[in-house]
């Protein structure tokens, strides 16, 4: 078996002392960042990204993979212990996790959450390991038009998932695509949208945009929110979890894992969608729906398993087609591009060692997460005592240094700060930042595929629709777009009945 031989090589790479230390460091960093309310693992990944310049590609990807896996779980620690979700995906963990803590079962709740998360993450990583290579073999049939179509599908799915705010997501994404065009164009070498600023000729670096949007804006917001005082962590250990207890909730864990793995593959869905859907499904399937919200173990296990089950499968479209499905995978894509690695089917043949090391790192990270999460949970009360102002100050300094380090250029710092302000404004006005980031990263790739397709096929625009795979993917993208934009367009086409007030749907936007 080729896969097993490659995986053995991957494990050798992942267990190299240097890589392993950074994988564990990333995992710990992710769990800590996820556990601290207001600082998500996406912020941590964005801040860490410029520092991966100093690392070899394999080590950099292991490090970021560690932050990703640890961070997705980390948010549940604060959800369970103090009823504050550290990440949006950890919200369903509050619903039954915190009631367990109030009953004096915090240790039991954490053990269930960690075990379910680790199981979901491990299953997902295995699916990534054995499912991605066959998918990549199929993707070898792709030419430039197919890659263009796949990129378009990735962009559209970002809008599609934000069912309640498709217009905002679309504007955010198109602005991102526009920012991606700033600088010298790839075909003629002509400066575009530089507005006479020479520094803009080298373009706006996506790393700088990401740091600004995800770190600075978030930190400013953090010091302005009213502190949630009066919360205390129940330190009573409660009844410990045994194997028989886990066996009793195995169906919930398996259902959550299955749902998470499936949802993870869909670009744009991510951990939040997976966890919420898993909770809803479990409420119906467990037979205990009427008691959900009072501290039911199944209500905690299912979303926890689903949340981490999205991590591995979300990497499948990223590695095989270069489509990032979430802010976290967009940062992983950025890291790959920084190191000169082009994700796609050819990566599996030209850089098999790296790919399988990533797979092995994901598997190891999910196994190690049990230890890392237990450790962080123990010292969590100490971490919670660090004032947000101190954390925020150093996050901004690290962001500024990170932005400067991208090209040792002060102009990048100014761009980063500008995007920090923009990120804050976006957060307050309901503009989702994730589509903008995805647009900035995928924009240049999308344009390059578009132009090279036209150059290869004599400027024939119909080539995107006449080639079977490309046409199918584009048809899917159009269907996705119409489906997602329909709620926005419908009020324009329909006359409302008299005396019925027009209600705006609540704004739900795509998050990490």
């Amino acid at each position, binding site marked *: 078996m080729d896969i097993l031989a490659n995986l053995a090589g991957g494990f050798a790479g992942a267990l190299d002392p240097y890589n392993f230390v950074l994988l564990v460091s990333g995992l710990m960093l992710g769990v800590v960042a996820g556990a601290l309310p207001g600082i998500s693992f996406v912020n941590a990944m964005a801040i860490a990204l410029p*520092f991966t310049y*100093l690392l070899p590609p394999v080590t950099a990807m292991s490090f970021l993979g560690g932050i990703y896996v640890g961070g997705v779980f980390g948010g549940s620690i604060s959800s369970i212990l103090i009823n504050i979700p550290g990440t949006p995906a950890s919200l369903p963990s509050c619903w039954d996790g915190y009631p367990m803590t109030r009953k004096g079962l915090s240790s039991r709740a954490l053990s269930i959450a960690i075990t379910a998360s680790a199981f979901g993450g491990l299953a997902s990583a295995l699916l990534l390991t054995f499912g991605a290579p066959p998918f990549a073999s199929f993707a070898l049939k792709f030419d430039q038009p197919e890659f263009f179509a796949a990129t378009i599908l990735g962009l559209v799915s970002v809008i599609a998932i934000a069912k309640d705010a498709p*217009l905002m997501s*679309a*504007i955010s994404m*198109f602005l991102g*695509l*526009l920012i991606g*065009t700033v600088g010298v*164009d790839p*075909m*003629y070498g*002509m*400066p*575009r*949208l*530089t*507005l006479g600023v020479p520094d803009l000729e080298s373009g706006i670096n996506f790393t700088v945009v990401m740091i600004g949007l995800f770190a*600075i804006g978030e930190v*400013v*917001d953090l*010091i*302005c*929110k*009213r502190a949630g005082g009066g919360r205390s962590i129940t330190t009573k250990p409660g009844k410990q979890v045994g194997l028989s207890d886990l066996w009793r909730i195995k169906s919930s864990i398996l259902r959550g894992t299955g749902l998470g793995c499936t949802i993870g593959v869909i670009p744009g869905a991510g951990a939040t969608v997976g966890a919420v859907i898993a909770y809803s499904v479990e409420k119906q399937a467990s037979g205990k729906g009427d008691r959900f919200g009072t501290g039911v173990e199944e209500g905690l296990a299912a979303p926890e398993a689903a949340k981490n089950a999205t991590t591995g499968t979300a990497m499948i479209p990223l590695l095989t087609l270069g489509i990032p499905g979430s802010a976290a995978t967009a940062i992983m894509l950025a890291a790959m591009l920084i190191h000169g690695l082009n994700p796609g089917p050819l990566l599996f043949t030209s850089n098999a060692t790296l790919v399988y090391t990533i797979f092995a790192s994901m598997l190891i990270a999910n196994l190690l997460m049990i230890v890392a999460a237990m450790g962080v949970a123990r010292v969590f009360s100490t971490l919670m005592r660090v*004032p*947000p*102002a*101190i954390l*925020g*100050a*150093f996050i*901004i*300094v690290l962001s*500024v*240094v990170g932005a*400067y*380090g991208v090209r*040792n250029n*002060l102009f990048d*710092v100014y761009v980063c*700060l500008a995007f*920090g*302000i923009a990120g*804050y404004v976006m957060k*307050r*006005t309901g503009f989702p930042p994730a589509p903008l980031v995805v647009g900035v990263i995928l*924009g240049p790739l999308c344009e390059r595929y*578009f*132009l090279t397709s*036209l150059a290869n096929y004599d*400027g024939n625009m119909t080539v995107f629709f006449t080639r079977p795979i490309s046409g199918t993917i584009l048809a899917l993208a159009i269907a996705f777009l119409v489906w997602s934009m329909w709620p*926005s*367009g419908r*009020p*324009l086409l329909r006359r*409302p009945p008299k005396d019925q*007030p*027009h209600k*705006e749907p609540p704004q739900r936007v795509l998050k990490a």
Partner: protein
Amino acid sequence: MTPLSHGLRRLATPAALLTGSLLLSQHIVRDSTMIAGLPDPVGPTGWPRLMLGAVGLCALIWIAKELLALRRAVHQQKPVDEEYEGYANGRAMIGLGLVVLYGLALPQLGFPVATLAFVALWCVIGGIRRPLTLALVTGIGCVVLLYVFVLLAQMPLNRGHGVFDDFTVALYRLLGIY
């Protein structure tokens, strides 16, 4: 606030986006005569123009939605977001201003001085008032940052101008970085 004035205020953002996209579409390249002779129908301006068109179209849909809501004369004020109850808007403005000042001060004062000042001020804004805590956090934190980035990562961080440059060099010597 009347529904009309509220609606007009809500129209400002999409109107600005539409105007901006129209204005930018005229200034994609500095000299438009350079593209006139290109045989390629798409050229260097094709893709950005498409994106600007998409932004403009979305802004138009947004405007249409707002006008429709305005015509129905319905209060569309967003419900109070619990997340932002008791939110310190003034502190946010000061925080943003401080972030901008930090960026501007970096080349003038140099990284060590600007960072010390920024961390201390940020902590004060964030509600930390004890002088000992402030001194320890800023002092130890900044020294650790200097060791990590200047000594280990060898990053050429700004040293500032004039007297600040001299101060930074002296500080680096004191810390054993130089």
